[in-house]
């Protein structure tokens, strides 16, 4: 265990602590001298206070909306007789596939106040000059980000509900509790850690998001912390103030983590262990005719989050001329441009290599870290927990600069290689795997491992034959949760890429900044199709399913 702890500490130190130390130094530096001026400037400026407030408001709004979507859909697909459950399960993660800035762009095309297709249609239909919905607002930003983030809660909730021992609910109903009471008194409290974990993930992810705020918020002149920080990298760069502002984000995350721990402790006395080695029929509520309404609700969320933006991107990718719509005619030339462009093909290749590498390495490391957190009383695990979770709150841009500064000097000069980008992505996304695997391991009754050891199995055998098979779905969920955002990550990679290591996110963002919207749309559709294919091949070949673990 000591060797494992030391190894984990070294890995996290290299991945996370080393760039953060650089950031800390720069936040306390002005013109090369040690100084608190950055923090003084930050605390005395109303502009930064406003950014802090906007960030917190957006984070809370996104958390509330995304959690509502995620819990509703998670309950619907695991605990009701709603039709098309498997379809919803299979495709609910798709919003996560589309980078937030691409989704934001689709909603700008749809809900731009003057020229958005929906607003134009609304005005034509109702002979009015009014705007149906202006996406360039705080509400618009929060809604778009929620569509992107809700799968984080959905996956946590479905994983928890799928793994829930059905006998607990059966016992409640045998004792006379109604279905609603059972859900309220048994089901919800047991899946609370999963909901809290998902909500925390959404909050920290939302406040560190860069792409969507850059597209929507900046155009609306609404500043959040990530866009404020990114603005400091325009020459002359002000790394000190940028790093100081990033500490405000870390502060928000620390608050979120404290809230998470308090919420879990408030439920102390309750055991969250639900995988006990017993099997039984899952409790499925018969909603009668209401099941179609529930299905309608799920499909509406799915439509707004997935179908509508993807259809928009698909249609725009087919327009000959974007501003002219259907009247300009349809064409596949933009796809042909993507397929024949060395720039685009290189970007896609780089992104797939990076995403596979990040997901695999992070999942393995996160498994070890999660096991230490959940199963051991090792001293110093709090530090590991903090280091694992903290990077999520550091804006990708600042992490990118931290990694650039830390890994582009002296003997360990990795600049210009894919490895430097891999380091930044691993640092950014390891917490996804960690949170997911912690939730999975918390639901695994230690008695199973104890029983194995009592029967003479070594720790390794116990892990191989008991633990890993039971958390297989959690492990693979972690892999997917890391793989998907790694493909579209922009904020860190935009600081680290070179012409040879350009990832697809930078290629898309660059094209968007140029106004080549159709190429962005074609590229995003192409990449999405590729990812979905990979996912389904992976799933079919390895038998991944989001299903309860069987003994």
């Amino acid at each position, binding site marked *: 265990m000591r060797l494992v702890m030391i190894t984990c500490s070294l890995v996290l130190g290299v991945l996370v602590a080393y760039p953060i130390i650089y950031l800390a130094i720069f936040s306390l530096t002005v013109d090369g001298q040690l100084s608190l001026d950055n923090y003084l400037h930050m605390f005395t400026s109303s502009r930064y206070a406003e950014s802090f407030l906007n960030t917190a408001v957006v984070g809370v709004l996104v958390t509330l909306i995304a959690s509502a979507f995620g819990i509703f859909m998670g309950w619907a697909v695991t605990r009701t007789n709603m039709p098309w459950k498997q379809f919803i399960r299979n495709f609910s993660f798709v919003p996560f596939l589309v980078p937030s800035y691409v989704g934001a762009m689709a909603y700008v095309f749809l809900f*731009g106040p003057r020229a958005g297709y929906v607003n134009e249609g609304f005005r034509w239909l109702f002979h009015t000059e009014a705007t149906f919905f202006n996406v360039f607002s705080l509400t618009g930003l929060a809604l778009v980000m929620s569509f992107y983030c809700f799968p984080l809660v959905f996956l946590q909730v479905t994983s928890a509900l799928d793994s829930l021992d059905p006998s607990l609910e059966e016992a409640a109903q045998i004792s006379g509790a109604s279905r609603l009471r059972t859900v309220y008194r048994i089901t919800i409290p047991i899946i609370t850690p999963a909901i809290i974990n998902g909500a925390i993930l959404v909050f920290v992810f939302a406040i560190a998001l860069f792409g969507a705020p850059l597209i929507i918020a*900046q*155009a609306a002149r609404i500043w959040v912390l990530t866009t404020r920080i990114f*603005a400091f990298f*325009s020459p002359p760069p002000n790394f000190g103030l940028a790093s100081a502002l990033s500490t405000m984000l870390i502060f928000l995350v620390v608050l979120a983590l404290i809230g998470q721990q308090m919420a879990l402790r408030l439920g102390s006395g309750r055991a969250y262990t639900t995988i006990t080695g017993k099997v039984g029929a899952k409790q499925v509520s018969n909603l009668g005719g209401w099941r179609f309404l529930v299905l309608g609700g799920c499909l509406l969320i799915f439509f707004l989050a997935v179908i509508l933006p993807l259809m928009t991107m698909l249609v725009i990718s087919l327009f000959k001329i974007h501003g002219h719509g259907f009247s300009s005619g349809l064409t596949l030339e933009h796809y042909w441009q993507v397929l024949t462009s060395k720039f685009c093909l290189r970007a896609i290749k780089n992104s797939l290599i990076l995403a596979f590498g990040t997901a695999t390495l992070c999942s393995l490391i996160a498994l070890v870290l999660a096991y230490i957190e959940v199963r051991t009383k090792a001293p110093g695990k709090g530090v590991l927990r903090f280091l694992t979770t903290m990077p999520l709150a550091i804006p990708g841009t600042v992490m990118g600069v931290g990694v650039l*500064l830390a890994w582009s000097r002296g003997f360990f000069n990795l600049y210009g290689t894919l490895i430097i980008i891999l380091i930044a992505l691993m640092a950014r996304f390891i917490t996804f795997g960690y949170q997911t695997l912690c939730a999975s391991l918390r639901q695994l009754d230690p008695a199973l491992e104890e029983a194995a050891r009592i029967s003479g199995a070594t720790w390794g055998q116990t892990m191989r034959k008991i633990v890993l098979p039971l958390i297989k779905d959690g492990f693979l969920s972690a892999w997917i949760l890391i793989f998907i955002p790694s493909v579209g990550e922009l904020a860190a990679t935009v600081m680290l890429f070179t*012409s040879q290591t350009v990832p697809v996110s930078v290629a898309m963002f*660059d094209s968007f*900044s140029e106004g*080549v919207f159709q190429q962005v749309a074609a590229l995003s559709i192409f990449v999405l199709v590729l990812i979905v294919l990979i996912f389904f091949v992976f799933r079919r070949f390895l038998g991944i399913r989001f299903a309860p673990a069987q003994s």
Partner: protein
Amino acid sequence: MHLKDRPINLLTLCLTAMVLGLFAFTEAKAGLDPKLIEAAKKEGVVNWATGMTRPYSEALQKMFQDEFGIKVNLTRIGTEALLGRFMMEMESGVCEFDLLTTGKPPSGKYLEKKWVAKYDSPSLARMSPRTIKEVYHDPQGFWTPTLIDLQLISYNSKVIPEAEAPKNWTDLLDPKYKDKLAHADPRYSGTAMLTVAALSQFYGWDYYAKMGKNKPMITRGHGALVEIMITGERPVAAEMLLLTVAKPIKSGEPIKNVFPTDGTVPTPWQTFLSTSVKHPNAAKLFLEYFLSDEVQKYCAENWLLYPVIDGLPNPPEFPQLADIKLMPVDLDRAEKEEESIKNKFWENIE
């Protein structure tokens, strides 16, 4: 012995001479040093970074590659972001760029830190004194103007009738343009930054405070700005680069340009070599090719840019550069107060 039996017959000699002569004529016509071409071909590749929007930078990339068979690794980012990246990479000692073409010259810190290599282009002899003086040629030889771009006002003529279109910079402050304006972010776009520098010096920061009341949409770069203008989402571009509207205009989009009566801001594209250049001959050849008559004429015809080479035609249907009232940028102020200019823009526009 008959002619046909000679190892190298007269016909072959004539043909060879014609080909060589044509080759020499072509090279001479392009004004390019054959020795430079040969040395550049041996290097085989050049790493070029530019803030010029992608359709144009890719076009130039392709033209150079097709002409000489030398690979061009293109990096395209907005000028401000590009210069920031250049700065970081040079500080880290890992800069891979051979040469850069930016909408703002690399003055001040870049020269102090010796990041920019001196190069006296032989093409300078073909530029007019006015071009050299007004297009910011650096007499020390650190950068070379390659194309003259102009920052002016553009609007969507389908949405805004000509009678209601702005005629000068101050017209943009009229409340009738509320929610109709768009402006590129000077933190990302070097040319937008220079325009802000010029207008803030000419009219004071109150200009942007008043523009802020019209709630302009701020886009990252001019490429997105022109698309937003074309769709009608924001039909008036409060500042626009000629280069960026060239292709849409040629495609028949309803875009009209306004040369403001109070002065058009010249924002030339200048090219410079980095001191970390790894392919110096290929880099110099690229620059000289950029300044060749063929490319300069192509840019005027297709990109609506004014050539820097004297005697070459203007963009078609555009006034002579000498007849355009210019609002020049104080480069020293733009360089010294760069951070302040960007911050003040946002403070006033928000």
